């Protein structure tokens, strides 16, 4: 394991993604990717009394599902990384409290899934363990409650707004495995281009995604066509368009093999999701469900996954502060 270029880590002992799991809510179940998820819920509460409890249950059950699918018992897992959007990452703490595995709670807003995957990969690559687990969750209702308005309030959402994905994605990494391997990690910098509109997260995060994308290509010497597919986490329709155009100005054409998880997860026309999906579970469930499946069936052999996060806070947005963005990239290859 060594650092190459400005900020990319090359993993010589590349850890392998053993298995992934995803659970999503009812709206995601009506979306075009429904068949790829392990479980689709019938309602947002899932038998719990609060949305916060429901989100904790979702991440807990997703972790249990990935443990069952991989066949690695929890006592063999050396570390786990998890995070979510609720204050102090409480869903993850509740969801993983009975797991009995050393726990790192992480916050990278909607980039948490890849942040966890990257940190777990580095830890395994350093030789500090055999297996590591990572997970991330978000819930539309609990996120609306914390960041926006009560659900029953009769207001209108602007076309640039995004729909927080209800669900969770989790994965287990093995130090030695048969792939897909996490080969390169390009952790992102905090990039703030001064966007203050909390209803336009895609625009707030796109410059961070661009910075990480360009840095990854410069550091590794690769170009966009090296990858079968490049995915960003939750830039949505607006952010996706911006990223394509900005990359073009820097001399990189990503139009043909690039897509965004927030664009993929919902059907924009029929589901009224405006600019697309967002939230930790957006990238988390789309990678754990759809993209990982495509890699296992060898449809994609080289994937660059760039999870994007809007590092926002409901108080500072009200105080008129801008929304800094972050984007972490992992190169996953068979």
């Amino acid at each position, binding site marked *: 394991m060594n650092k190459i270029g400005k900020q990319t880590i090359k993993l010589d002992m590349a850890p392998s993604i053993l298995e992934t799991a995803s659970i999503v809510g009812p709206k995601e179940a009506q979306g075009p990717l429904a068949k790829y998820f392990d479980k689709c819920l019938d309602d947002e509460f899932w038998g719990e*009394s*609060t*949305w*916060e409890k429901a989100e904790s249950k979702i991440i807990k059950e997703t972790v249990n599902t990935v443990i069952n699918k991989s066949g690695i018992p929890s006592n063999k897992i050396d570390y786990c990384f998890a995070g979510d959007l609720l204050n102090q990452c409480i869903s993850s703490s509740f969801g993983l409290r009975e797991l009995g595995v050393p726990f790192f709670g992480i916050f990278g807003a909607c980039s948490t899934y890849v942040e966890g995957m990257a940190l777990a990969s580095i830890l395994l690559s350093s030789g500090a363990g055999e297996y590591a687990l990572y997970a991330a969750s978000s819930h539309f209702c609990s996120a609306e*409650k914390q960041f926006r*308005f*009560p*659900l*029953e*309030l*009769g*207001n*209108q*959402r*602007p*076309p*640039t707004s995004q729909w927080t994905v209800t669900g969770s994605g989790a994965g287990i990494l093995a130090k030695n495995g048969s792939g897909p391997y996490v080969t390169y990690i390009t952790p992102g910098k905090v990039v703030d*281009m*001064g*966007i203050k509109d909390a209803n*336009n997260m895609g*625009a707030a995060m796109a*410059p961070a995604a661009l910075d990480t994308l360009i840095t990854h290509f410069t550091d590794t010497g690769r170009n966009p066509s090296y990858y079968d597919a490049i995915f960003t986490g939750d830039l949505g329709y*607006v952010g996706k*368009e*911006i990223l394509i*155009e*900005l990359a*073009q*100005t*820097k001399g990189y054409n990503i139009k043909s093999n690039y897509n965004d998880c927030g664009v993929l997860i919902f059907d924009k026309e029929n589901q009224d999701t405006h600019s697309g999906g967002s939230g930790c579970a957006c990238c988390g469930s789309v990678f754990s469900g759809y993209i990982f499946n495509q890699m296992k069936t060898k449809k994609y052999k080289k994937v660059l996954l760039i999870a994007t996060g809007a590092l926002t806070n409901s108080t500072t947005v009200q105080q008129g502060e801008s929304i800094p963005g972050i984007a972490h990239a992992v190169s996953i290859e068979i």
Partner: protein
Amino acid sequence: MKPINTTQEYQNYVDKKSPNSPILKNCFNAFWVGGLICSIGQIILNICKSRGMDTQMSGTVVSIILIGISAFLTGLNLFNKIGKFAGAGSLIPITGFANSIVSPAMEYKSEGYVMGVGSKMFTVAGPVLVFGISASIIVGLIFMIFNTQNITFV
């Protein structure tokens, strides 16, 4: 396209790239739904008056009925759908005010009746109350000053 270097350039670019709300459609829906709600109010008012109530009493009955319907529809998960369609059309009449109090009350019930419902009930409507009451005090003071001076415009 030229490369973007400054935050101002980026802001201008984002403004151009971001789709705008369908203002004409929104205004039209707000107009007719808002008009419909007010017409329903007027019908109730007329019925009350024809039953022998005075104007003030009839107005109170209209408010109570519209607030009641709005709160009920909020509880049935229907008012947010009307609000999404009509925007200011359902927000500006007293129906929107009722919705803005009932919706946080429902949302924060999970935090208990005191710290949840009680303390969060006015998170949305609070500003309307504060500035509505403040404005009425200012207008009242102006009225009082002119009234004591025996200067009237009418």
